């Protein structure tokens, strides 16, 4: 019987049946970080259970770390305890940890791929919803809670049920200035924040094939924002080329066998999906969120909608509340709207291509007066690469703050926060109320759009600026 890529990977990981329709699946990679793991380790200790496969478990520190000073103390008193707990737990159980002083430390979803830990055909889990990022390599990757973290530490498996399948086919060439971030925002705008609930989404089509691994990661990263359990993309030559030579990628000895295996990872031509969506990529325009959830997006050249535009009364009410929270009015244009803060970073958009795109927009210009602008590279590797390419100098000369790697202002667990009532152009993934700080107003955009907003001091329609390609 014809199968989708998701079904193939799922079935190749079934260890056994638990009961009814619940299977026990083997986990190939378990990534952990300081915030969602301490209670899991405490649970193991209480039950007297060891970690079954420390060799398949990798840890980093990213969520609450300071991006200014590389010390546990700089994270603050309670966060320091969390960082120390992670270090102690990893030492006790023999788990590889990329701590604050490791040169390759960074956001868990940035370092997994760049170290080659993320590979096609795997099941990858992490106590973080943006684990969906790793699906870009043709893996089943999803976020789990702390009880499940404990379960995986103890058994290297997880009880699962087969999810429904959703195919999102995006064909056509993306217009100048349209990035994978714009594509995924447009998809979420169309399907809604719950449109993917219960589904694993597979992205396909020639717009996807043309994307780099970085772009594909941005796309899969935000599949959780439409509620999908996971998002994935069949691996191809772009995937294999990215992986070759990475630290934890298959060695020379196994490389050909691994590639041969990976080449079998695709949805059969006659596989039946539970739901199929076709999108013409050539019609997607640069996107920006205007509200307080990621489906509240518009193209940058559109006016902000009116609550009365929504036939669904609950959506209309949500729009009314969002406009009030965001300090915006129906019909207003975001290209007329000033920004206070610009954040370029997060597991969505902090990779080298993102920084190149932002730096290309910045050029020799300066950050507008009154705007606080941060660039937070996703990892030590991204930071070093950006410095070697001269991107860091471009940002610093323009007036951006150039920081150490971490999750930073995406969720403001550390001291990188947006103040109450301040408006932020952010390359992150969630525009929820208070996400970046109590009362903060987040607009989700691509790195190029964020950079342009920093320079202009307001949002910019990049397609109106000649010669810009992002």
């Amino acid at each position, binding site marked *: 019987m014809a199968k989708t890529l998701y079904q193939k990977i799922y079935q190749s990981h079934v260890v056994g049946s638990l*009961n009814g329709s619940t299977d026990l699946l083997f986990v190939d990679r378990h990534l952990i970080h300081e915030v969602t793991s301490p209670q899991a380790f405490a649970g193991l200790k209480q039950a007297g*259970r060891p970690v079954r496969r420390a060799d398949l478990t990798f840890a980093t520190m990213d969520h609450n770390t300071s991006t200014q000073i590389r010390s546990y103390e700089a994270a603050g008193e309670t966060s320091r305890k969390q960082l120390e707990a992670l270090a102690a737990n990893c030492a006790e159980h023999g788990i590889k940890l990329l701590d604050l002083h490791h040169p390759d430390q960074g956001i868990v979803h940035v370092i997994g791929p760049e170290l080659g830990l993320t590979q096609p055909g795997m099941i990858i889990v992490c106590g973080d919803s943006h684990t969906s990022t790793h699906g870009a390599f043709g893996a089943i990757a999803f976020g789990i809670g702390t009880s499940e973290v404990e379960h995986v530490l103890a058994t290297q498996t997880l009880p699962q049920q087969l999810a429904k399948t959703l195919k999102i086919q995006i064909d056509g060439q993306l217009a100048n200035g349209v990035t994978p971030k714009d594509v995924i925002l447009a998809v979420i705008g169309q399907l809604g924040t719950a449109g993917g609930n219960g589904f694993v989404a597979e992205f396909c089509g020639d717009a996807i094939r043309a994307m780099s691994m970085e772009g594909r990661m941005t796309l899969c990263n935000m599949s959780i924002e439409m509620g999908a359990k996971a998002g994935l993309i069949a691996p191809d030559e772009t995937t294999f080329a990215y992986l070759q030579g990475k630290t934890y990628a298959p060695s020379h000895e196994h490389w050909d066998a691994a590639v041969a295996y990976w080449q079998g990872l695709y949805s059969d031509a006659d596989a039946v999906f539970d739901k199929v969506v076709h999108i013409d990529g050539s019609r997607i325009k640069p996107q920006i969120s205007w509200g307080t*959830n990621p489906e509240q997006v518009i193209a940058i050249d559109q006016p902000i909608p009116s609550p009365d535009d929504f036939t669904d009364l609950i959506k209309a009410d*949500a729009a009314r509340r969002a406009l009030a929270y965001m300090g915006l009015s129906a019909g207003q244009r975001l290209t007329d709207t000033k920004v206070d803060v610009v954040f370029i970073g997060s597991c969505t958009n902090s990779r080298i291509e993102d920084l190149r795109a932002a730096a290309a927009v910045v050029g020799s210009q300066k950050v507008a007066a009154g705007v606080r602008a941060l660039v937070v590279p996703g990892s030590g590797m991204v930071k070093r690469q950006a410095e070697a390419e001269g991107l860091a100098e471009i940002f610093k000369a323009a007036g951006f703050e150039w920081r150490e790697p971490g999750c930073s202002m995406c969720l403001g667990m550390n001291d990188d926060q947006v103040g109450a009532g301040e408006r932020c152009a952010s390359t992150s993934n969630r525009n929820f109320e208070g996400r970046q700080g109590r009362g903060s107003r987040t607009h989700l955009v691509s790195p190029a759009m964020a950079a342009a907003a920093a320079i202009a001091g307001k949002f910019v329609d990049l397609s109106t600026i000649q010669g810009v390609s992002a």
Partner: protein
Amino acid sequence: MSQIFASGLVCPLDKNNVDTDQIIPKQFLTSVSRDGFAEALFYDWRYQADGAANPDFVLNYPQYQGASILLTRANFGCGSSREHAPWAIQQYGFNVIIAESFADIFFNNSVNNGMLLISLSSSNIEMLFNRSKQGPQQWQIDLANQEILLGNNGAIGFSIDPDVKQRLLSGLDFIGASETLNPQIAIFEQNRRQQLPWLG
């Protein structure tokens, strides 16, 4: 045979897309403990910037003090995977959430803490909200028969995944149940090493 899983006062939270950042804001995630999150629940809605209780937020209404059943709308618990969200809800006193739909990770996290999450059609949710507008409601949840008993006003049935139902009724140790397959896990690992040696 009736088996009451939970019973109590219903608090109506009339919103769609309640995300985990609202359920428990990030500043409460730095703890290394599983306890102490009750005060953090819905913090930015429950408390004003000066720390005083927000009288306009439904959880602070006098008639909903002591509520143990939360009634809400679609896509409840969307966003982050933080299990601190169900911990906070449970430690506040809710053990049942009734909604049109739930985000997947939040659903699993809640079940792993022994909470019952009931999904109903939007028309049924609307009916329950209308009922709660008439005055504070005391409902009972019969999990075995999959019914919400609405006091003197009848009952409403619900569907639930049979595996989830069994876990909630039996209170099985989540990890212990999987450990019964330890021999199969060992065989799986051995086969994997032979067939896909680069995976370790």
